[in-house]
């Protein structure tokens, strides 16, 4: 019985994450359409796109082109198992937040390797922008995570979620400054405006995905769905107390995601140096203040 429950705990989160991710992309396009006063595609449109992409004969430039993408998607799938998803966390006691931080490196690394094999200068520019913006938000992201780990005195994310039960959410405790900083860098983590210069269709012909077609693009979309899920799930786990079952978790994720979509609809796209300059100023200052506040309280 325990084995069956354990297997369930391992198989169910990635499947649910995929469905929720695809639903989020569709919801994103629908909300943007409604904000633009038009009807927009049906919410399951990304799913239809995936079906079409799997039936298209893509082009490949070499073996590393496929392997890099497979590695990146595998890394994202593994990452889902480390994040508590409404009470289910299969690998919660294998290293905690530090391992999560490091497995998050697989995804851009895989896409960077695969894109490098594509040998298109647009891809190289896209990847260099992606890494530069990652450096931009990582400073603030690390400060926020360190504040949390110092406040709760643990590196395991399951402990942090359990310490926030009964509505002692971290967002309403002395950690609110870190929560605000995390909200400010959440668009950069998800890759949406104002920080979506990475996949700018008009400037660099969609950056790292310039040479993807067919099943490569399908895997990239699945990766995009997973990365949306992971970005928002981390925020909900760390600051909004996770959820005791997947349904409450999903509700909180929808609220955060709709908020983020509204930000995407309003802002223009910042250039790379403008984005990095912003990310190194205000979110870093606020998260630094949050860290100092926690240090003084302890």
């Amino acid at each position, binding site marked *: 019985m325990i084995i069956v429950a354990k297997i369930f705990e391992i198989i169910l989160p990635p499947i649910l994450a995929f469905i929720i991710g695809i639903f989020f992309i569709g919801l994103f396009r629908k909300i943007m359409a409604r904000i633009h006063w038009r009807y927009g595609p049906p919410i399951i449109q990304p799913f*239809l796109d995936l*079906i079409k992409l799997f039936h298209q004969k893509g082009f490949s430039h070499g073996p590393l082109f496929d392997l890099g993408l497979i590695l990146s998607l595998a890394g994202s799938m593994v990452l889902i198992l480390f994040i508590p998803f409404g009470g289910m966390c299969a690998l919660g006691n294998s290293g905690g937040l530090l391992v999560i931080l490091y497995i998050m490196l697989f995804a851009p690394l895989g896409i960077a390797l695969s894109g490098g094999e594509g040998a298109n200068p647009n891809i190289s520019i896209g990847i260099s922008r992606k890494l530069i913006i990652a450096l931009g938000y990582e400073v603030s992201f690390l400060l926020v995570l360190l504040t949390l780990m110092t406040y709760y005195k643990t590196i395991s994310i399951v402990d942090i979620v359990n310490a926030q039960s009964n509505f002692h959410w971290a967002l309403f405790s002395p950690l609110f400054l870190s929560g605000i900083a995390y909200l400010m860098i959440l668009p950069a983590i998800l890759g949406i405006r104002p920080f979506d210069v990475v996949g700018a*269709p008009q400037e660099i012909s969609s950056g790292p995905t310039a040479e993807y077609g067919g099943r490569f693009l399908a895997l990239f979309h699945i990766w995009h769905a997973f990365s949306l899920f992971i970005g928002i799930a981390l925020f909900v786990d760390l600051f909004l107390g996770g959820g005791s079952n997947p349904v409450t978790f999903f509700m909180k994720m929808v609220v955060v995601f709709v908020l983020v979509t509204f930000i995407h609809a309003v802002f223009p796209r910042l250039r790379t140096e403008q984005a990095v300059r912003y990310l190194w100023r205000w979110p870093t200052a606020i998260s630094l203040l949050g860290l100092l506040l926690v240090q003084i309280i302890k």
Partner: protein
Amino acid sequence: MDRKDIKKWFKEPGKMGHKYSLWAVYFCTGCGIIEVPPVITSRWDAERFGVIPVATPRQANLFLITGYVSVKTLKAIIRTYEQMPEPKYTVGFGSCPINGGMYWDSYNTIKHLDKYIPIDGWIAGCMPRPEAIFIAVTHLWTLIDKGMATAHIKYREKYKYYRENQEKVLKGLDWPPLYPIEDSND
């Protein structure tokens, strides 16, 4: 529009997928491109049909040739068409690709685009209205359903014919042939 017909999705997912997510490569050929931005923005929303513009031909499966084709543009069109993944659909838009249109006696435009690139369907007009683009899309759906949108298969089978025409008008091509050409001596 049978997008909600679940049984059909299970029976032939490839065809239904290609119908309801046609991604158009955003290639601006001639004066017809002025009709495309209204189609994809709020007034005549193309996204509800699943049609969105994408940046590169590698990600696209619909090619809209909007307007007159000069010889210089023909080179880019052939390149872009060959870089699209199969299956792919082409639509000629406006009367200039059909028979030369307004520029029927110019030295620099292509009069019959069908000799160089296989075309699935034409939209007549000097500039057709955005509603005509939607009628074309729904017509393309019917063709895909019946299996009659076979321009890319025709390109592969009759590649020798197309390549000869391309070389004649462009006076030599820098890139190698896309499919191997067997020289038949009989």
